[in-house]
């Protein structure tokens, strides 16, 4: 038999995994996953982001993908949309860069300037 406390734990745990089905307001991380992105190594980046989000229980963060963003030479590209903030575009992302993006930008709100598209070129 489950106690009320156990029920609450199930509720929290399950909600973390399924609340992407509700209208969402939290952060959205979008990984460019067209042929160009995949060829440049977007899959390990996506998996790293997912892994890190899961590890830190970031329940209001959705990890999604998109098609070609149009700057194939800068792939893998990761875009971060935080509520009420300008979109930030990261380019030539690697799994280790992705770790920093999640830890600093998504969790602490500090944009990792040196990886953004603005510091390229």
């Amino acid at each position, binding site marked *: 038999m489950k*106690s009320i406390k156990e029920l609450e734990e199930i509720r929290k745990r399950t909600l973390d995994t399924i609340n992407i*089905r509700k209208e969402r307001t939290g952060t959205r991380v979008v990984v460019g996953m067209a042929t160009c992105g995949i060829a440049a190594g977007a899959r390990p980046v996506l998996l790293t982001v*997912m892994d890190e989000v899961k590890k830190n229980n970031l329940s209001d963060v959705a990890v999604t993908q998109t098609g070609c963003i149009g700057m194939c030479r800068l792939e893998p590209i990761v875009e971060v949309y935080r509520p009420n903030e300008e979109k930030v575009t990261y380019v030539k992302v690697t799994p280790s860069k992705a770790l920093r993006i999640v830890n600093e930008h998504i969790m602490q709100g500090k944009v990792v300037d040196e990886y953004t598209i603005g510091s390229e070129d």
Partner: protein
Amino acid sequence: MEMYRSHVMICKGTGCNSAGSERIAQNFEAELKKHGLENEVVVERTGCFGLCALGPIVIIYPEASFYSQVKPEDVEEIVKEHLLKGRVVKRLLYAETVAEDKIKSINEVDFYKKQVRVALRNCGVINPENIDEYIAFDGYKAIEKVLTTMTPAEVIDVVKRSGLRGRGGGGFPTGLKWEFASKSVNDKKYVLCNADEGDPGAFMDRSVLEGDPHAIIEAMTIAAYAIGADQGYVYCRAEYPIAVKRLTIAINQAREYGLLGDNILGTGFKFDMEVRLGAGAFVCGEETALIASIEGERGMPRPRPPFPAVKGLFGKPTILNNVETYANIPQIFLNGPEWFASMGTEKSKGTKVFALGGKINNTGLVEIPMGTTMREVIFEIGGGIPNGKKYKAAQTGGPSGGCIPAEHLDVEIDYDNLIALGSMMGSGGLIVMDEDNCMVDIARYFLDFTVDESCGKCTPCREGTKRMLEILDKITEGKGEKGDIEMLETLAHTIKNASLCGLGQTAPNPVLSTLTYFRDEYEAHIKDKKCPAGVCQGLAKYFVIEEKCKGCGICAKQCPVSCISGKPKTPYVIDSAKCVKCGVCLEKCPFKAIVKQ
């Protein structure tokens, strides 16, 4: 549960299921595996999304992409493009969601925009076979609150204040019903759920059971606590195999979690429930017949009083509510009775689910606040009438209800307004008819249904409906005579007044309401021997248009009674006296030279 970046929700309600959604689900699983995505993307089988006309439906989160009419062979493309590369497959999206420059969210589409989903809130959102998902969306939170912080009297007070009325059709205040049963003193009481949805065209109870079975279990437990019962039964039609299966799984899961049983949530409260299958008799939706059926007797009604709240199942105080009524209960306790009462009209609170069917574009299930107009439901949410045809009437309340003609399209839907129009809410079937439907034929159809389903216990219903059907048969065959309409009216009033149960008392409604609004059609059948809509075969006449006839003779060869004659290359003639109105000639003529009038 694992964390997945994307959730593929596949509708496994009866509609989509019979359109092949299981194969789609299996293809998704196979394709995801092939592309190594099985740890990133999860496939969930869920309940009805409501837009059954466009099934099978697949929704992919987090984008909430709404794919409609998906075929098993489309799955490969969706997985490769959408799930692997992140490119939504536009050509398979529900067309309404595709705007010129962007993809609209499903809540911006006409079909969903005006809906308020309370009873259907979890349908299509959770996997109904996984209790944890129900719990995640505040499931079993209401029973927690009720058992730990409220007295039974407070529970009844909340239901009363919410203004909830029975969604099975009668519209009796649910809180009052509970109060009567709670005041009956007895050592044993029962809580029943009526899932014997028998109206042709209504399928909301099925969808709730298929999509959110735990809500019913939770609500029945709350009801049991309120009246002091420890045993419940859900009486469900055996024709709903998916609903029965999911409900049975849900009951077992709830028992495992101690949400049913001897000591629910450690509070000492005891309640358990079982499913009982009905054999599909319409009359078993009537409460006393339903109770007799559960007892193992023949499903026949008995006179009331005593009402079931005093003397019900096995002679004990019993409450019986409909599936949709129960589906509202947990929400009322979570959001408060004032929230529920803030929706709807003065006397009809909350929302109502309607099953749209007949001549309407968006066949399916919709949930709207009471007080929404028929026009909004049919033309905005339902997408109007197909093929540019004209609206003639909508039948609500199935065989017990009546029709609502065009001049009353702006009526606000609630229990009392529909009754004032000679129809009723019923369980919420809404069948739309256009100019091609013959209203006499519609009345005949519903009466044919009640004659079949009359249990035969009382004479007015058994004999009266049969006599009415005979008159209607006569009229539609072109043998109607003066006095038939008056005889129909006399019979109808006698049956309404003298029948034992709701089935007989409401059976004449389709005839009375079509007589009120479409009396001219009856008169045309009887006096002019014409069916204005061209439906009644017995009144149809077939003609050859001379100018169009090439004299090929195909019609004469096909005619089963050899009533078409003529010489090759000259126009043929149909002998109306011999014609059996089978319509074969019209179908076979290559030059469209034969018409029906």
